[in-house]
């Protein structure tokens, strides 16, 4: 549980990779997306994969977790991302390696009450 007003906000990029492409997709994400996002105030927290081996003929799923401290920091990062076309270019370039993806915003369940008390 975080301090009220400074709750940690998490981003989850969930990507289902094309069969055999997960490792290349992750490398591309790390080299192209991550440096840009870090300059926008986002902190890379986890890079998870399931199953934990690189499948050759089937799809791995990647879970990339980011965080920012507080909702204001979330808005700051969002405004900076939207003003920078390189983020969209990344997703466009990565598209051939992705079956499906989703971005979700999360918090610790213990922070829900504080986040909604506005």
């Amino acid at each position: 549980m975080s301090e009220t007003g400074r709750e940690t906000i998490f981003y989850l990029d969930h990507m289902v990779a094309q069969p055999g492409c997960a490792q290349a997709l992750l490398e591309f994400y790390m080299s192209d997306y991550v440096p840009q996002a870090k300059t926008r105030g986002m902190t890379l927290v986890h890079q998870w994969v399931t199953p934990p081996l690189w499948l050759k003929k089937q799809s791995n799923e990647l879970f990339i977790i980011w965080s920012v401290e507080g909702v204001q920091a979330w808005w700051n990062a969002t405004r900076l991302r939207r003003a920078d076309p390189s983020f969209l270019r990344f997703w466009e370039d990565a598209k051939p390696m992705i079956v499906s993806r989703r971005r979700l915003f999360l918090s610790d369940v213990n922070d829900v009450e504080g986040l909604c008390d506005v």
Partner: protein
Amino acid sequence: MFRVTKVLTAAEGADTTALINGLSLTARKGLNVLKSTLEPTLPEATTGGDYIWQLQFAGEWEYRAWLDEAGREAASILNDAARVRHVDAVSYKDGRTGSKRRLHRGVYRLLLISVNKAPDAASVAQFEDETYEMGSYIPGILRWRISRVQEASGARPWTHIWEQEYQDLDGFLKSYMLHPHHWAWINRWYDPECVEHMIDNHLCNSFCNFQRSVREPENGS
């Protein structure tokens, strides 16, 4: 109820008193106009012009009748580049409306939206439902309405108008902007990096103070 909302940006050096009086006169001349409000926008209206002009009619027929009479004068004023630099305008029937309590004064906020990348009608309906639900979840929103636009002009082919009323500006700046129903949920329709994204990045976001609820017809009272 049928409504017209126009967000005006005055021309550089224009006589704004004459502009307001001229437009208000076209509303007073229209027998079918139930209510007209023309309020200066608040400084927080970053993409929201200098004035918000709103007209209410009993129905679309009454609106069309006004357009053919005093509405022509209004159009002439609004099309005069020496007086008005830009107008974003929408006309619409009332969409889904919610209310927690009546407000006699407060802050009115509108957002003109162009849903131009929707994959299907179901996504648009879901967006409308979720936008309406913001009023239920976010304490600062006291009255609200999401409407589909019938006619639009201005910077984008606006498809929706999302209207809210707050007790004060903090209701918007704090409650609305900081609530997770906004940034962690609804925002995915607006965020180009989310796969659900379907709304044009350019929005018309405007605010004004009001003395009586702009969503309530006066009906001559």
